[in-house]
């Protein structure tokens, strides 16, 4: 890309039920998400994903600061989102149950600095697979739930508490019961961690019974899925359903099956935050068109050193 920093770029317009893709620097162009209509007519929320708090290693020597940088970048948006959703892997996995809970408490303390008071959480396999979600539920609540916000139905589904990456029939029954009262045209947004479709099963980038969820969701005409796990922006369609993966906030991973192993993209000291970012999702007044803006952490303000934050 030869575009100068901060330039807005529209990549695709899909029309009804579709999305407008855009990319830019954190905080550079949020006003695109607000039209001239009244403030009640449209809104936006922010997706943060794969923060892996507690990770230490060469793929991100600045890991102790990256989450704070993301919090600052979101706080620097000229308009604050209605809510922030974290699509899993809030913490990096550990065998030590006490350390897992400590990391979760530290994570909560850091994101408490977000100006946006409404935060929605879900686990990734790093948070939940070793204890089937027990610590996550203690710290953040249910691993699957739904809520409504300004005319959109949001469903959070858990494909990580089962270490074999399955949703399970019980959860699928719950999802069906949750969506059943909605008309076929209802706008629905699904949050999950792993891709529901078989993006790259060789890299464990799939959900064992994700096809059952997709078959179920196909009964509704306006469904969009936002997920994480793969540490990169990715867009895919299964029938009428759009699936959008978000960038990570710890280290990027290579494109699906682009190399023999899914090893992290090596850290570049000249561009220490390359490939890291978050997403703003705008919802227009029709509730049928979503606007995705990908914000890079490159160029975002530097966070305070970890030592200045205090202990937990």
């Amino acid at each position, binding site marked *: 890309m030869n575009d100068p920093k901060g330039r807005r770029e529209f990549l695709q317009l899909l029309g009804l039920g579709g999305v407008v893709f855009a990319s830019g620097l954190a905080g550079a162009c949020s006003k695109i998400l607000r039209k001239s209509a009244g403030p009640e007519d449209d809104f936006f929320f922010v997706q943060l994903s794969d923060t892996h708090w507690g990770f230490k290693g060469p793929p991100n020597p600045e890991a102790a600061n990256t989450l704070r940088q993301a919090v600052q970048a979101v706080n620097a948006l000229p308009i604050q989102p209605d809510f922030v959703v974290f699509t899993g892997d809030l913490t990096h996995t550990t065998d030590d149950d006490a350390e897992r809970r400590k990391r979760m408490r530290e994570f909560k303390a850091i994101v408490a600095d977000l100006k946006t008071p409404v935060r929605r959480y879900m686990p990734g396999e790093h948070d939940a697979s070793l204890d089937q979600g027990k610590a996550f539920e203690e710290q953040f609540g249910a691993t699957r739930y739904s809520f409504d916000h300004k005319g959109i139905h949001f469903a959070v589904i858990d494909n*990580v508490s089962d270490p*074999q990456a399955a949703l399970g029939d019980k959860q699928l029954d719950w999802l069906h019961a949750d969506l059943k009262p909605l008309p076929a045209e209802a706008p629905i947004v699904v949050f999950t961690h792993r891709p529901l479709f078989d993006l790259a*099963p*060789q890299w*464990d980038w799939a959900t064992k019974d994700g096809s059952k969820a997709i078959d179920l969701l196909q009964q509704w005409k306006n469904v969009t899925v936002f997920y994480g796990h793969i540490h990169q922006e990715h867009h895919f369609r299964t029938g009428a359903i759009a699936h959008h993966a978000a960038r990570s906030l710890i280290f990027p991973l290579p494109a699906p099956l682009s190399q*023999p192993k*899914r090893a992290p993209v090596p850290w570049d000291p000249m561009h220490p935050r390359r490939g890291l970012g978050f997403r703003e999702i705008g919802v227009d007044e029709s509730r049928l068109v979503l606007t995705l803006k990908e914000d890079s952490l490159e160029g975002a303000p530097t966070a305070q050193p970890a030592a200045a934050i205090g202990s937990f």
Partner: protein
Amino acid sequence: MRDALWMMLAVTLAAAAALAQDKVIAVTAERFKFTPAVIELKLGEPVVLELTTLDRKHGFQIPDLKIDESIEPGKVTRLRIVPDKAGTFPFHCDVFCGSGHEEMAGEIVVKP
């Protein structure tokens, strides 16, 4: 019904005889590796992989061959493979087992 039972028994006996004649390759799983990590097979030569774990539950998934098995502590998972095409077929653990799980992988190499 009686004929059906005999048929099932015959198939079972035939399968057991085939298993008894097949080459056996022991594969151990432990966090976060398989041993051996590269399994070399010959085209058309049946083998039985005997999968065991040295620590906890793991998985053994070969997406290209639609194979997805669990490896439980204290048990031997036997997997009969008749390679019908040459090539390299990656496998990995699909039961999340901790930091390093993402690297727990290997490959089956089928030579002509």
